[in-house]
């Protein structure tokens, strides 16, 4: 879509091994990835191939064993970039209510941080409530996480990732526990948000339709050690609609992605093509 | 302006401390231009350590502890300026029907003694002085507050005690300490020592000799007045600490006065003074018992320069 945008996220010859000594596991083989500013990239691949690992690398939660991760031109961690992340498990803090959980980034991230005390009972609170209402959780702000169902937790966790208007948005299967309709509603909301605010988004998903609907690029990974084996551009016009997903062009895209994943699942086949 | 003196007692509030509070309440300290604060203590030996540390200036404590410390750290050790117990309260206590009638009879019996206390430390000397093999005594070490009960329970045959404390404990237990029990004083069995008195820090003695004199004047006067008016003295104490048992504390005051203070020697020399020859023997005994590296000179231990005139130190008669 926007090929000349400056590179915002870059993985340079990154490898990642978990553990040490005998228990060492190579989760990610040598990986290179560039994401332009304001781009929307989806990551797909078989279970355990290292998708979450890539997200954690880009967020700076784990350091690369080999290679470098740059965000906004600086090594990750040092850059003054607002990051929003929805984890695969909706890890809400159990001692906070849903609203407090959603407002947490405002308490931490500048420039909101400085205004938190003054605005937490007015503007910020309203902002959280509005976001909760958008995902269908109005009225649940005062509940505690254990009083919500799995899908509701996931939506709350999504709100937490969005509330501070992040420049870099990491979403790890954010809609996995939702029914198809709620999911499609949230796709539309996310697309709107992307079109108006233009954050750089990295989305992990198992739903190829979701990847095609939302992303500009879909990266296909193969398993053990994980590696990106294919990088497909998705050029449908924006804003996209659910109807579009039934069009032949879209169906053939998902078919192609399916095929790529099938071959990615049998490592031998990939080895040859890589 | 008044000289500040922090004064430490040898133990918690008891009848025998009446004169210190008497002096304070009646304003005798103030009259001597002294500002005295009195703190309760944790043992007559600890008085010495407390003064040595510099936090306290004077106190009521054990001369034998002074001797021990003077042998090792002469510069820091406080000096005794007024001897109050001219007879040491160390004694062996057994039941009246016990076969232990003298020190010699301890052989093969069980003796309860407080770990580390002077009464315990002097046992080898006591045994030696009485021709008894020290190893033949089976010693069990017990805290002082348990001794009487273990004796009564029969867990031990005799105990090495502080007479002033044990006597009143037995009274409190509603026993007759004179009829039901036998007392063998160390001093009657060849171990003749001095005991508690007023001691002051070297610094106070050197820098403000007048203050020390004033302190002793006030205390000396109070001793006489309290002994003559024991009821008033105990009432004054009870006003300070309502929890004390007035009867017991009055008896304690009188017992201590009669048995440890109003001795023939005190009648001869006056309250507060000592016999240099006896002190010399005591220093020898202590040096041997505690294996001191060297013997301190008597002058390092006791200084009679601050005593009030002898005429003021005549032991009084116990009042009604």
């Amino acid at each position, binding site marked *: 879509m926007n090929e000349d945008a400056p590179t915002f996220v870059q993985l340079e010859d990154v490898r990642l091994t978990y553990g040490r000594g005998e228990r060492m596991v190579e989760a990610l083989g040598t990986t290179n990835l560039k994401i332009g500013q304001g781009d929307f990239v989806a990551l797909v691949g078989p279970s355990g191939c290292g998708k979450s690992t890539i997200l954690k690398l880009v967020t700076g939660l784990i350091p690369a064993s080999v290679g470098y991760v740059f965000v906004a031109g600086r090594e990750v961690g040092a850059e003054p970039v607002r990051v929003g992340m929805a*984890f695969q498990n909706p890890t809400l803090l159990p*001692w906070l209510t849903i609203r407090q959980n959603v407002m947490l980034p405002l308490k*931490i991230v500048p420039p909101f941080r400085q205004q938190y005390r003054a605005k937490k009972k007015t503007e910020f609170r309203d902002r959280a409530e509005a976001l909760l209402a958008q995902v269908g959780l109005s009225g649940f702000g005062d509940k505690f996480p254990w009083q919500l169902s799995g899908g509701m937790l996931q939506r709350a966790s999504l709100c937490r990732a969005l509330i501070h208007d992040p420049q870099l948005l990491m979403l790890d299967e954010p809609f996995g526990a939702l029914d198809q309709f709620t999911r499609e509603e949230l796709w539309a909301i996310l697309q709107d948000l992307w079109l108006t605010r233009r954050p750089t988004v990295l989305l992990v998903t198992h739903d190829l339709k979701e990847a095609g609907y939302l992303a500009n690029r879909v990266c296909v990974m193969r398993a053990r050690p994980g590696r990106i084996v294919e990088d497909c551009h998705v050029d449908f016009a924006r804003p996209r609609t659910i109807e579009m997903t039934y069009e032949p062009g879209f169906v053939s895209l998902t078919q192609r992605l399916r095929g790529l994943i099938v071959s990615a699942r049998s490592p031998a086949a990939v080895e040859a093509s890589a | 302006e008044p000289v500040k003196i922090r004064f430490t007692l040898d133990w918690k509030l*008891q009848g025998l401390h009446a004169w210190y509070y008497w002096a304070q309440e009646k304003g005798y300290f103030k009259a001597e231009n002294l500002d005295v604060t009195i*703190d309760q203590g944790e043992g007559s030996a600890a008085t010495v350590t407390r003064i040595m540390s510099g936090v306290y200036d004077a106190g009521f404590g054990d001369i034998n502890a002074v001797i021990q410390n003077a042998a090792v750290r002469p510069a820091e050790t406080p000096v005794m300026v007024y001897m109050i117990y001219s007879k040491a309260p160390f004694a062996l206590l057994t039941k009246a029907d016990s076969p232990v009638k003298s020190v010699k009879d301890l052989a093969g019996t069980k003796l309860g003694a407080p770990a580390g206390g002077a009464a315990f430390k002097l046992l080898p000397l006591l045994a030696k002085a009485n021709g008894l093999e020290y190893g033949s005594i089976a010693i069990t070490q017990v805290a002082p507050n348990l001794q009487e009960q273990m004796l009564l329970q029969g867990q031990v045959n005799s105990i090495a005690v502080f007479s002033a*404390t044990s006597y009143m*404990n037995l009274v409190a237990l509603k026993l007759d300490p004179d009829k039901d029990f036998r007392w063998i004083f160390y001093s009657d069995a060849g171990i003749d020592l001095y005991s508690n008195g007023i001691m002051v820090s070297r610094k106070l003695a050197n820098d403000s000799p007048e203050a020390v004199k004033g302190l002793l004047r006030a205390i000396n006067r109070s001793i006489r007045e309290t002994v003559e008016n024991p009821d008033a003295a105990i009432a004054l104490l009870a006003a300070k600490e309502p*929890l004390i048992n007035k009867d017991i*504390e009055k008896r304690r005051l009188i017992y201590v006065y009669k048995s440890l203070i109003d001795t023939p020697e005190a009648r001869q020399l006056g309250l507060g003074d000592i016999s240099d020859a006896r002190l010399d023997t005591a220093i020898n005994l202590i040096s041997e018992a505690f294996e001191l590296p060297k013997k301190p000179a008597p002058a390092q231990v006791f200084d009679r320069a601050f005593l009030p005139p002898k005429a003021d130190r005549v032991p009084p008669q116990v009042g009604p």
Partner: protein
Amino acid sequence: MSYALRRRLSSTAVIIGFFVLWEAACVIFHIKEIVLPRPSQVLATLWLQAPAIWPHTVQTLYTTLIGFALGIVSGVLLGVVIGSSRLAYDTGYPLLIGFSSIPKVAVVPIFVLWFGAGTVPAVLTAMIMSLFPIVVNVATGLATTEPELEDVMKALRATKLDILFNVGLPRAMPYFFASLKVSVTLAFVGTVIAETVASNRGIGNLMMIASSSFDVPLVFAGLLVLALLGVGLYAIFSLIEGRVIGWARRKDDYAMG
């Protein structure tokens, strides 16, 4: 409501039963007053001597509260340091364990030599005794915090202090409150020990005076006062605990469906 009432009644009944048993044991086995007085004697003493006991109680409570407050503050600080730094963990623990293995009775006289008898040594003793359980539990609570929860903060580029205040400490609260229960009793013990050694007032002083005239029921009245003070403070913490760490105990709520 009726459930809460029944709960309170049955627990009161058991506690009273305990004292009745004690009384019965004393009567049946002819236990001498001097060994273990009957609770009725103790209560009678407590009642009769109340005016004289009161100032001692106030002194002990006051000293303990100050020492305990200092213990909490320094305990949490030390716990945070030990829980978050490897070096502090490796050095702080052995030093603290070593120090805590020492009976405080041996340390109080040293305090007296520094500060004189009175409130200061008692406050210090209460503080150092109540400190260690708090340190250990806060440090353990921090060290066992789920990394997933911290990741939430790290992704937001939170500072270490942010993480501590927003994840570490809240997560460690159940540990902290557990340690308070132990610490408050130790604070009382510390105060009383210091008072028995060096003080002109306080329950410790009272017990020494009582035991020097062999007034065993009065000694036990002192002990009873201590026990009551301890339970009283515990009740207060329990209330706070219920509010603060309800999230960790939701099981209870859940069982009532």
